[in-house]
């Protein structure tokens, strides 16, 4: 189930270089949403909607939170919206993360602007989630206090060592797995990171779910634009990020 409407921005903050954090009041949409789903936002002056992952869900207040980075002219225009203005959103769309019982141990791995959807899934597991986040440098670091506020263990990595530990998220993940194997790994980030995380998960026989993005038009599975190569029962075919995903079992996609 999804809906479409105009929803008011009730909070806005710039949280890092080119990175914005919006909270929207959207009772009907919020009632339907699960971690890992996305909203499809219409930006005036641009023909196609922008798919943005959902970072926070507050069912009590009927609000969702989205965190996005300026990547082009569309997201730049989106960043100019202010508190009190309304956004045209379609959502929630796609299939979110599969959740285990909340007392299971999980690791979330977020790379760069792939970090926001990890916050929504880590919230569900509280102290049983370890959130590994990686950024190029300290100016791009986001959401670390938010993970801590929901009792997640956090490991911060930067490529240049200017914040947290120097190195890649995959190094931190491999180290965590030596101590204790989780019941699930969740990941979102650049394809090269997702490939590496998927391989580590496979080698350690741990279930892994990854969230993907692709250039998208309809957002609901009608146009078949956002293709991703999938594999099931030895057969390869094109699935679609908006309908079969954005969250996929890492064993079912060919990256």
């Amino acid at each position, binding site marked *: *189930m*999804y*809906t*479409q409407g105009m929803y008011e921005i009730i909070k806005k903050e710039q949280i890092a270089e080119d990175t914005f954090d919006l909270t929207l009041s959207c009772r009907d949409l919020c009632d339907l949403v699960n971690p890992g789903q996305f909203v499809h936002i*219409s930006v005036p002056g*641009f*023909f*196609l*909607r922008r798919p943005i992952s959902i970072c926070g869900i507050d069912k009590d207040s009927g609000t969702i939170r989205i965190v996005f980075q300026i990547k082009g002219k*569309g997201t730049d225009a989106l960043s100019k919206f202010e508190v009190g203005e309304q956004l045209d959103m*379609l959502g929630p769309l796609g299939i979110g993360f599969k959740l285990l019982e909340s007392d299971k141990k999980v690791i979330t791995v977020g790379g760069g602007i792939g970090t926001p959807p990890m916050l929504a899934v880590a919230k569900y597991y509280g102290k049983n989630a370890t959130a590994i986040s990686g950024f190029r440098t300290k100016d791009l670091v986001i959401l670390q206090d938010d993970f801590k506020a929901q009792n997640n263990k956090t490991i911060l990595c930067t490529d240049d060592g200017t914040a947290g530990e120097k190195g890649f998220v995959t190094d931190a993940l491999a180290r965590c797995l030596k101590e204790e194997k989780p019941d699930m790994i969740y990941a979102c980030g650049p394809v090269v990171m997702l490939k590496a995380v998927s391989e580590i998960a496979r080698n350690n026989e741990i279930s892994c779910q990854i969230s993907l993005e*692709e*250039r*998208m*038009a*309809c*957002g*609901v*599975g*009608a*146009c*078949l*634009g*956002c*293709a*991703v*190569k999938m594999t099931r029962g030895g057969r390869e*075919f*094109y699935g679609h990020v908006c*309908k079969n995903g954005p969250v996929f079992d890492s064993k079912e996609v060919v990256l």
Partner: protein
Amino acid sequence: MADLSVKFCGVDMKNPLITASGAYGYGREYTDLYSLSKIGGISTKGTTLYEKDGNPPPRIAETPCGMLNSVGLQNGGIKKFLAYELPNLEKNNLAVVANVAGGTIEECVELVSMLEGTSVNIIELNISCPNVKQGGAAFGTNKDCAAEITKAVKNATSKPLMVKLSPNVTSIVDIAKAVEAEGADAISLINTLLGMRIDIKSRRPILKNNVGGLSGPAVFPIAVRMVWQVANAVDIPVCGMGGISCAEDAIEMMMAGAECFQIGAVMFNDPYAPVKIIDGLNEWCDKNGVKNISEIVGTVKPW
């Protein structure tokens, strides 16, 4: 309330709006928002004899006032359509236009033969897809090939045959006349215009297919011009499409000579577009004293 009903090649539709092939799947994806019975008809996702994978991603690129796509006719094949999609469409009150595409004339003939005896109202023969290597636009950009395939398919079906034309030709009128002469019952146009975008950072085309079909408001004036030219050149009815994004655009298209119209890319921006356009047609007719929408077809008064 005006009368929006139209009769298009013998098929009664409650309004002249058909959702365009490739933009609306088989109608399942938008029923969270409104009933399929709101729309006049659906032109199904282009369906081939066998399941088709489509092209590698990226398949979508945004353009000024529009978009490129290179989906490449990904679909589950005619057997899946008949077993799974058509029964679902039959539950609704709307005209079913089966959009079919084949790599060879024989494939097209087999496809339409399989639709005999089904509830499909109209066959839309796609001879204009720019994104497939075989068939597709290869048929639609050559007058003789267009005529040959129309003749063969017409002989294989008892249903009204609408041929969907490509705008990527020197003379759309010549192609329209050629398919009319071989028995086409209607013509729909325009399919997408071949386009390209390049990422200047990577110096790579945005589409993995390098080129793709342009649609959206950017192509609307071209579509109006071509519909007007074709409607004036043939005696069979014309279904107009290409960049329609509001009721006023639909009225313009009908004034150019289209008896009904299709909408596509606009729904990616506004999924409620079909409902808004139908409501807008009603309002416009009421305001302008038009009792039946068909009155306006071809009423443009050229200078």
